[in-house]
């Protein structure tokens, strides 16, 4: 139904190539997340799929049909914008009904669908309000409601949670995941937050400077990053990178160790260092440890560990979970 295929899709603004020829396959019903730092081209890619920007060359297939030349209105996609882009002069009801009105559905059917969407999203009490009378989370729900009523081939989300506070973000993340499970519709979700990508995605597409760095499931990317960029971007706290003699001793240019793959002890250990800052989160403790010849390493330890500034510790990496990279930053396997 809603598979999306990009074939050699390329976008240039004048002489500036934003996205070099990209191939990508998103299966029907999949939750795909485009993730990358700002300016990596993820939003542009989404807008190309939406039809809000013209591709310079290449083809976009939705459900097997070439839609490259179709206007956004005829691609059968819904989009939730970062700013929500609610129509300020319309009530919540009219906002949600708008796509149906554009599709010329009978009024009774529109009303029924709006009511249903409002129930799903807990908006029933707010249908007669204007967007400016709603809180951020409610606006977000209206935007989602406007997207789901039409039963599109696929949903596009452009950083939908970035304007919400942290607590609400966690809640909406969950709601969107639940929505995906309930509807089973293809979703493409753009974010710069790797936590959102890890928690929501079936498939993560990591983008950097317009290029696809790696495509895979969250755990694939976590376990087997193809390169330094993905290794550093996925996972929190960030992977430690070690260069120099220690790396050379293991036949690589850069050695990557995740903070959770280093064991801390009060004595002994392969490496030694002193604790700079200890961040106690309760469940975990993040230790920032200064070492003589490895630089500063981040280590994730248990929540109950009683180490503080100035303590000398021994560090032992988990040899089974080391990541090796060559001088071009590619993973050595």
């Amino acid at each position: 139904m809603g598979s999306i295929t990009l074939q050699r899709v390329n976008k240039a603004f004048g002489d500036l190539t934003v996205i070099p020829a990209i191939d990508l396959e998103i299966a029907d019903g999949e939750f795909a997340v485009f993730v990358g730092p700002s300016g990596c081209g993820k939003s542009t890619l989404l807008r190309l799929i939406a039809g809000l920007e013209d591709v310079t060359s290449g083809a976009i297939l939705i459900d097997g049909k070439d839609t490259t030349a179709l206007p956004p209105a005829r691609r059968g996609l819904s989009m939730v914008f970062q700013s929500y882009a609610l129509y300020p002069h319309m009530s919540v009801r009219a906002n949600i009904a708008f796509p149906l009105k554009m599709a010329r559905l009978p009024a009774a059917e529109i009303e029924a669908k709006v009511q249903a969407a409002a129930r799903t999203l807990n908006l029933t009490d707010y249908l007669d309000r204007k967007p400016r009378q709603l809180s951020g989370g409610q606006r977000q729900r209206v935007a989602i409601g406007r997207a789901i009523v039409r039963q599109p081939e696929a949903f596009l989300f452009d950083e939908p949670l970035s304007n919400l506070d942290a607590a609400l973000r966690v809640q909406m993340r969950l709601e969107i995941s639940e929505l995906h499970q309930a509807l089973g519709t293809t979703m493409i979700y753009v974010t710069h937050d790797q936590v959102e990508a890890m928690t929501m995605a079936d498939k993560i597409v990591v983008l950097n400077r317009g290029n696809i760095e790696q495509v895979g499931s969250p755990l694939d990317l976590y376990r087997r990053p193809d390169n330094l960029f993905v290794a550093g971007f996925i996972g929190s706290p960030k992977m430690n990178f070690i260069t120099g003699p220690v790396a050379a001793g293991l036949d690589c240019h850069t050695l990557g160790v995740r903070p959770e793959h280093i064991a801390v002890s009060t004595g002994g250990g392969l490496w030694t260092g002193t604790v700079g800052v200890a961040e106690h989160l309760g469940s975990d403790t993040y230790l920032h440890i200064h070492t003589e010849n490895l630089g500063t390493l981040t280590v994730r330890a248990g929540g109950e560990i009683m180490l503080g500034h100035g303590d000398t510790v021994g560090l032992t990496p988990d040899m089974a979970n080391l990541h090796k990279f060559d001088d071009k930053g590619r993973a050595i396997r």
Partner: protein
Amino acid sequence: MARHVSTRRRWFVTVIAWAIGLLMFFPILWTFITSFKTEGEAVASPPSFLFFQWTLENYVEVQRRSDYFRHFSNSVFISFGSTLIGLVIAVPAAWAMAFQPGKHTKDLLMWMLSTKMMPAVGVLVPIYLIFRDLGLLDSRVGLTVILTLIDLPIIIWMLYTYFKEIPVDILEAARMDGAGLWNEILYVLTPMAVPGIASTLLLNIILAWNEAFWTLNLSAAKAAPLTTFIASYSSPEGLFYAKLSAASTMAIAPILILGWFSQKQLVRGLTFGAVK
């Protein structure tokens, strides 16, 4: 943000502010009061402020002697006409520049503004001669054309700054929701643009109503708007303060009320969006 302010200071500031406000407004108030006096009372010494025989006679007299309403309708015709024509020409232009900006859009906007900087006296002579030859002197059409041209840059600029504030996101959302160009304009753009267009309309009517260079130079009797009509009172014959006041009150009252309504938009319009 509510800061604590001592009551004494609050009253002090209030008294000063009201005193200055009333002082600024006094000439208008005085004109208004005088318009209800008899000519004798209008020049009485000491002047009477409230306790005199109030009369409407002056208003009747102004209309009877100089056909006030003809000049009033000229003003309405010229200011509304020039503003509406200006809007018809300017809306598409501002629209295109706000939503389809090209490489030279900014230069174009600056150039349009620069035409507004040309002093009227610089072109008074040729315009006067062209109008004379075309028979447009002292005609409402001629004045409307001139005011349209001098208003056009301001109208375009005001509309441009308003249109610029409509988020492109919302237009794109409409496209994603399946709206074609026509529906996008009808259901989304127009409702969002109307307040800006209305403000522009209002401010330009005010500016055109009060324009007093071209109206004075290009109209005499038949097409004279209120600016020219009032100027005819500058050569006094006998006692006339009360009648001058009545005519003035009628000339400024409608626009003063419009102006009070549009004061928020005024700043943006008059500074070409430089101060909001």
